[in-house]
C-alpha cells in the first residue's frame, strides 16, 4: 500500500516570522539610539574636559550675584543660582497660567462674537482675529512694550485713573489690602460655599431625574459662594486697610506693581493666542449640526439651556484637543520674554549660562523644564478631554 507521505513544510525560520522580525528591528533601533546618545554624551564630556570648560551641576549651589527685576519669592543677588533659576521658572509659570486663563476667556468671547448675527460684532471679531493672528508675536510684543513705555508718563507725573492706582512708564501700581486674620476665615467660607454648591447641584440633578422638578442651582450657588465670605467679612467687623503705593525716591513703594514688561508680555500672549482659540471655538460650535439645536427647540429647551446642555457639550469634544496645543504654544512662546526684558526662565537661565559658561547644563535644564510643563499641561487636558469625550457603549 502506497503510503502518502505528507511532507509538512519545515518550520519557517524565525527570520520569516513578522513578529520576531519586528521585535528584532525594534531592539536594534533602540540600541542604535542609545549608542548614539552615549557617544554624544561621552564626546561632550571629553571635549569639555579638553578645553578646560567646567561641567556638572555644582554651579547651582554657588552665589548667583546678579539681580532679577521681578520675583514672586524673595530673592537677592546673594542667593544661589538654583534659587535664581526657580525665580525664573515661577515667573514663566505665572505669566503662562494667567495667559492661558485670559486667552481662553478672550478667545471664547471672540469666537462666539464671530458667529453673532449682529454684523458689526461679527466683523469686529473677524478683524481682531485676522489682524493679530497674522502678525508675528515678537513684533506684537515689541509693539505693546513700546506703547506702554512711550505713552505712559514718568513716575513723578503718573496718571491716577482711580484713587491710589498709578499708571506710569514703570508700570501700574495699585493698593493691596493689608493682611487681616479675618481673610483666612473668608477663604475658608469660600471653600465651604464651593463644596456646598457642588453638593446642591448633585442633589438637584438627582431630584430632577426622580421628580422632574428643577431647582435654581445657579442662583443659590452664586449666593453661597459670594455670600458666605461676605457674611464672615462683615461679622469680623469689616477690617480693611490698604497698603497704598507711594512715590518714594525714584519709584513707587508699597502696594503691588505690574511692570510694563510683564504687562506687554501678558497682553501680547493673550491677544495673539486668543485669535487661535477664537477660531477653534468657532469651529467647535459650527461642528455641532443645526439639527441638534432644532431637536432641542422641539423639546422645548430655552436658548440658554440649548447652549449649555446640547451645543456646548458636543462642541467641547471638538474644541479640547486643538486648544491643548494652543496652551502649549502659549507657554513656550512666553520665552520670547527675553526680548523685552521680562525675567522669565529663559532670560534668567541665559544669564546663568553666560556667567558660568555652562551652556550644555543650562540648555538641558531649560529643555527639561519646558518638557515637564508641556507634558503636565497635556496630561491635564487629556484627562479633561476624557471627561467630556463621547462615551460609546
Amino acid at each position, binding site marked *: 500500500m502506497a503510503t502518502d507521505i505528507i511532507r509538512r513544510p519545515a518550520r519557517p525560520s524565525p527570520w520569516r516570522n513578522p513578529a520576531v522580525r519586528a521585535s528584532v528591528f525594534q531592539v536594534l533601533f533602540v540600541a542604535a539610539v542609545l549608542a548614539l546618545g552615549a557617544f*554624544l554624551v561621552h*564626546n*561632550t564630556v571629553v*571635549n*569639555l574636559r*579638553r*578645553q*578646560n*570648560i*567646567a561641567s556638572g551641576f555644582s554651579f547651582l549651589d554657588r552665589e548667583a*550675584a*546678579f*539681580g*532679577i*527685576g521681578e520675583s514672586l519669592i524673595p530673592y*537677592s*543677588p*546673594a542667593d544661589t543660582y538654583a534659587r535664581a533659576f526657580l525665580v525664573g521658572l515661577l515667573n514663566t509659570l505665572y505669566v503662562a497660567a494667567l495667559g492661558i486663563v485670559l486667552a481662553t476667556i478672550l478667545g471664547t468671547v471672540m469666537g462666539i462674537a464671530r458667529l453673532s448675527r449682529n454684523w458689526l460684532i461679527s466683523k469686529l471679531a473677524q478683524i481682531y482675529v485676522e489682524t493679530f493672528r497674522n502678525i508675528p508675536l515678537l513684533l506684537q510684543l515689541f509693539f505693546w512694550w*513700546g506703547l506702554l*513705555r*512711550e505713552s505712559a508718563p*514718568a513716575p513723578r507725573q503718573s496718571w491716577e485713573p482711580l484713587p491710589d492706582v498709578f499708571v506710569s*512708564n*514703570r508700570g501700574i501700581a495699585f493698593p493691596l489690602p493689608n493682611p487681616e486674620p479675618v481673610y483666612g476665615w473668608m477663604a475658608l467660607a469660600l471653600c465651604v460655599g464651593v463644596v456646598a454648591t457642588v453638593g446642591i447641584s448633585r442633589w438637584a440633578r438627582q431630584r430632577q431625574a426622580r421628580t422632574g422638578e428643577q431647582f435654581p442651582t445657579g442662583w443659590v450657588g452664586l449666593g453661597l459662594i459670594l455670600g458666605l465670605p461676605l457674611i464672615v467679612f462683615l461679622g469680623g467687623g469689616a477690617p480693611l486697610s490698604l497698603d497704598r503705593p507711594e512715590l*518714594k*525716591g*525714584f*519709584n513707587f*513703594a508699597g502696594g503691588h506693581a505690574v*511692570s*510694563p*514688561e510683564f504687562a506687554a508680555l501678558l497682553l501680547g500672549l493673550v491677544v495673539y493666542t486668543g485669535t487661535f482659540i477664537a477660531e477653534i471655538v468657532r469651529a467647535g460650535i459650527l461642528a455641532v449640526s443645526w439639527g441638534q439645536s432644532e431637536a432641542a427647540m422641539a423639546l422645548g429647551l430655552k436658548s440658554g439651556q440649548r447652549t449649555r446642555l446640547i451645543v456646548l457639550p458636543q462642541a467641547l469634544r471638538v474644541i479640547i484637543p486643538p486648544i491643548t496645543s494652543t496652551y502649549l504654544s502659549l507657554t513656550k512662546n512666553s520665552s520670547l520674554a*527675553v*526680548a*523685552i*526684558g521680562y*525675567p522669565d526662565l*529663559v*532670560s534668567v537661565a*541665559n*544669564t546663568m*549660562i*553666560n*556667567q*558660568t*559658561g*555652562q*551652556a*550644555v547644563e543650562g*540648555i538641558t535644564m531649560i529643555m527639561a523644564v519646558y518638557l515637564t510643563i508641556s507634558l503636565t499641561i497635556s496630561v491635564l487636558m487629556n484627562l479633561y478631554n476624557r471627561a467630556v469625550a463621547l462615551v460609546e457603549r
Partner: protein
Amino acid sequence: MTLRGWFGTFAAIACVLGFGVTAQAGATLDKVKQAGQISCGVPTGIAGFAAPDSQGHWAGFDVDVCRALSAAIFGAADKVKYVPLTAQQRFTALQSGEVDLLSNNTTDTLQRDTALGLNFAPVVFYDGQGFMVPKKLGVKGAKDLNGATICVQPGTTTELNLADYFRANKMEFKPVVIEKLDEALSAFFSGRCDVFTGDSSALNANRLSQAPNPDDYVILPERISKEPLAPVVRHGDEEWNDIVRWVVYALIEAEEKGITQKNVDDMAKSDDPNIKRMLGVTPGMGKALGLDEKWAYNEIKLVGNYGEIFDRTLGKDTELKFDRGLNNLWTHGGLLYAMPIR
C-alpha cells in the same frame, strides 16, 4: 535669546557634542590661511568701537584690532569677516569655532579665563563701569541711586558689578535686563529706567550717538569697577594666542618707538636694532610667530600704531573725544606697556 542667539548656542553645543573642536596647536592659523580670512567677533554696534560706517564698512577701535591682525597675517587689512555678536552670544561663538577671536569689549576676568576655557590677549582698552542718568533727575553721584530702576545688558560683568555695588552700599535697585543694546538704550531714553549702566567709554559713545538730545544726559563720576577690555581666543591653540598677543604689543611698541603709518618706510631704514628687528629688516621675529617677517611693518603701514588707531576711532579726531587717560603709554602716565619684541 534671539534666533541668532539660539542658533549660536545650538551650533556651539552641536560642535561640542558631535565633532571635535579644532583645538590642536597651530590649527587656527592654518584654518584662517585656508579660508583666506579671519572671522572676528565684534560688538553689534558701539560708536567708536565697532559700527558700520556710512558706506557699510565696519569701522572702529575693535575693528582695527582685527584689521591689524589681518595685516600681520595676510599683508592686507581687509581679509576679515566681521561677525557681530551680543554679549550673550560671543563666548559660545568663540568656543564653538564660529569665530577665531573676539574683539568685543570683553573684560578679562578669572572666571572667563578658566571656567569658560578662554585666553585673553593683552588689554587694549582700560575701562571702568559707570552710570548714565538723565540730568533732570538731579542725581549728583552713584550713592543717590537707592531704589532706582536700572537698564542693563545680560551676560556681562556689568550685570554682576551692578549687583555687587548696590549690595556693598546697602542700596536697593530694580534691574531691567534687555539683551539687545539698541532695545536697552531705547528703553532707557524713553524713561523706562532711571539709569543705564555699562562701561563708561561705551556709555559716552551711546550718549553721543543715540540719545535724542545728548546734553540731557550725564555720566556720573563714579567708576564702580575695573574693566580691562582685551581680545579673546580659545584655550588650546597657543600659537594663535601668541600671534594675537604680539600683534597687539606691536601696535603699542610702534607708538612708543614713534613709528607711524606715514614714516614706517623711513623707520625701516633706521639703525636702531630694536626697530630693525620689529619691522623685519633683521629677520627672526616673523619666523618665530609663524608669520611673514613683514608682519609688524604691514600692521603699521596698513592700520597704524596704537595712538593713531585711538585718535582715529575714539580720540581727538572724532566726535567722541576720549581722553587717553589710562590708555596712554606707560611713559606718558598710562598703563600701556608692550613686552620687548626680541
